[in-house]
């Protein structure tokens, strides 16, 4: 009891520093996104592909009477498509930003970590990853890379141009077949 009480006190002291993150997986890496920025975890869904869309678009999925555009995290990381069923997270819409989904391999759970264990991006990181990653938390199990949903929105990604080099097929379908 005594120990539990002390822990409680510690938490309160650290409340300013504590962040609750939702852990998610793509490939071999673990990522984290601030839970306040996630609106809903949809779980496994069938995605409708959109021909001719940029490669980072996983497809569209119906969500509460709307058509939700989803971003494929694997494609952003330059990984192969995932064999199994993907998980869809719906990102919270800030005032101006559009609502969109993020497609990952699997969603873990909610972890609370201290902001003090956050380390900045290493300077050796390549340009794409530098844009995507927002530092990493040093966890017991390894590193958890933080993602910033603002930077993951489809319109931001297409503006940046870092991820424009490929598309979901069809670019060669010019009239002079």
């Amino acid at each position, binding site marked *: 009891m005594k120990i539990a009480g002390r822990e409680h006190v510690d938490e309160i002291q650290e409340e300013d520093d504590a962040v609750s993150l939702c852990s998610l997986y793509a490939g071999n890496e673990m990522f984290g996104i601030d839970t306040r920025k996630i609106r809903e975890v949809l779980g496994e869904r*069938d995605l*409708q*592909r*959109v*021909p*001719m*869309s*940029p490669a980072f*678009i996983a497809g*569209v*999925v*119906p969500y509460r*009477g*709307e*058509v939700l*555009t989803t971003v494929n995290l694997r494609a952003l990381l330059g990984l192969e498509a995932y064999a199994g069923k993907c998980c869809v997270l719906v990102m919270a819409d800030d005032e101006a930003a*559009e609502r*969109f989904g993020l497609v990952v391999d699997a969603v873990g759970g909610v972890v609370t970590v201290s902001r003090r264990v956050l380390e900045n991006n290493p300077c050796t990181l390549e340009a794409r990853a530098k844009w995507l990653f927002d530092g990493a938390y040093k966890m017991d199990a390894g590193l958890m890379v933080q993602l910033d949903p603002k930077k993951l929105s*489809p*319109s931001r*990604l*297409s503006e940046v141009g870092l991820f424009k080099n490929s598309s*979901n*097929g*069809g*670019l*060669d*379908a*010019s*009239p*002079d*077949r």
Partner: protein
Amino acid sequence: MRLSGAEGDSKWWDAHGYRSLPDIGFVDELTKEFIAESQEGLDRMERCLTELEMRPDDSGLLGEIFRAVHTIKGTTGFLGFDRLEKLAHAGEHLLGSLRDGKLEVTSDLISGLLRLMDGLRGILVLIEETGSEGTRAGDEDGELIAELAMLNGHELSEIEAPQIALVETTKVEGGVTAAASSGSSPALQPTVVSEKASADKTLRIDVDVLNRMMNLVGELVLTRNQMLQSGMEAANFPELARRLDSVTADLRETVMQARMQPVGNLFGKFPRMVRDLARTCGREVRVEFSGQETGLDKSLLEAIKDPLTHAVRNAVDHGIESPADRVLAGKSAEGCLRLKAFHQSGSVVIEIEDDGAGIPIERVLQKAIERNLVTAEDAAGMSEREALQLIFLPGFSTAAAVTTVSGRGVGMDVVRANVEKVGGSVEVESRRGMGTTLRLRVPLTLAIVPSLVVKSGGQAFALPQSTLVELVDIPQREFAQVVQRIGSSELYRLRERLLPMVWLDRLLGLEADSPEQSKGHYLAVLEAEGCRYGLVVDDLMSPEEIVVKPLSPVLREIGLFSGATVLGNGTLALILDIGATAARAGVKPIEEEVGEIGTGEAGVHEASGISFLIFEDRLRERTALPLDVVERIESVPLGQIEYAGGRPLLQYRGELLPLRDEGNVLGEMDAAHQAGDEAMVTVLICGDASVGGAQRGGMVVRQVLDVSTGTLLDRDEATQGMELALVKEKLTQVHREFGVKAKAAWQEVA
């Protein structure tokens, strides 16, 4: 009109600033109602005023105008809007003199009254936005009231005395408040603008409609409850599903009904606009309306407001000539502008017709060459119809001089773009010296689109029915025969016309089904933005009424999809943008038309304008019916045909259709049937669209041969009173009953 009034005001605020009162932003219910009513009254007044100019003796009109102003005056006094009351009072006074016959209706008087209306509107807008009528710094009302008094002539001195006093007091007051509020007024501006926008978003709905909606929603909830309780396996599940279906359909219809607004609401602002325009351009124009009661979805009404305004401006500025020119051309000095709205095959058509000079083709071509829109060689080879299409190109304007009204190079391309954005289309027709007709065709509603769902590369796509001309089934074994190639492009020969083929799976970079597995293909013949092409798809699914959902900007950028929809089975389908697909595939409208002329058929098509359905009823004879009288071709089991009084009858969709059997097909088939064959009879369901289907009937035929265009032959000795036509160079008899009518119509056209 309300909008332009507000714009004028906002400029005015910039210059002077206005007094911000403590109760700013507070508009109570009573005032809101008063504003809405007054706005409606003023709308009515606007219509009446322009009519009054044409029919100065109409006391009914005058009465209506008087009532509108009087109501505003009466209510304002009660609500305590002094400024509004003063202005309304001045107007009422003038109208009173007019009503008593002391004054004549003149153009100046109408202008004065229109200004009075603008003034009243301005104050109403101000009240709506700020909750008070404010006191403007350099009181404009004083001038207006003085002007109205001037128009009232003999009573000038009476009114002027208190008038001056009013101007003086407001000036002093205004000076103080302008200084006091100079800081706050710029900050106020944005909120005022946004509030204005929200005011336009409200809609008046009949309480009955709202009640019906509520009832239907109640029924929907009940049906859902029953469904949840009974479960999928229950015996009454199909019945519940049917009820759900009917409730949904009813609810949808009711909601649509609530959204429908008469086109007249939009037309209402044109008389005033045309009047002002005609004055600036020195024209004499009369405006005529028809079909104002035609309903259109509110959002669509908003969407076509600007294109329509533009088209009306064009008609007055470019279309109708100056009175002197008109008299020289042998027409009445007064030009006529007709605005028509009517329903046609599931869409609403709005026509803007003027009896002006028409569009000068050679100037259009000259301009297009000047602006490098076409080459001189291309221009020389263009038909009149093709040349007319040039006016829709961006950056095209034929106005000799840039006037304040039009001629800035933004023109018909914007009109077309705006109308097409809402799924509509624009056509233009022009006859030299006779006038121009611009036809806007818009769907009834944006939200729900009838479409055909097709499959290509394993994915579902929706094609809007409005663009779908016909479907062709190409079985795999015939594929090689019917598809022809020129270079690398594939063409389908459809009734002697070559149709460019576009493979949807290839265009979108989807993995095509391997040819061995494929049972064949379907060709959807589509037409959009003047392009006609065949889209090759793997499979047809169901026709469905789809609910259009917008796509995110990134996906809109692809430019091939106009939206997405959730299908009946819960999956998503992308809605194909037919025009953009054509452009992406390289199908060009003009080139295709040149191709048509090359085959030599388009000429015939335009000249005769009649398509025939050709069939065989008597042995060895070809008979034709004009295609537009044939509603459907049905295959009916012989047993379903019943006889009464020796005449064959068919029960068809709850109607009893008399059958005509000229070739004694039924008799022959009966004989064959007794021999044990299962027989199907081909029946043409014929109706005359012009008489609302009253003359519907069926026609038993041996076989349907073709659809083709043809020319009717003149009746002479050789034809022996029969209606004959040449269709594809073969003699064909046109069926009597329907044929005569068609010929009459045809002669009218000629």
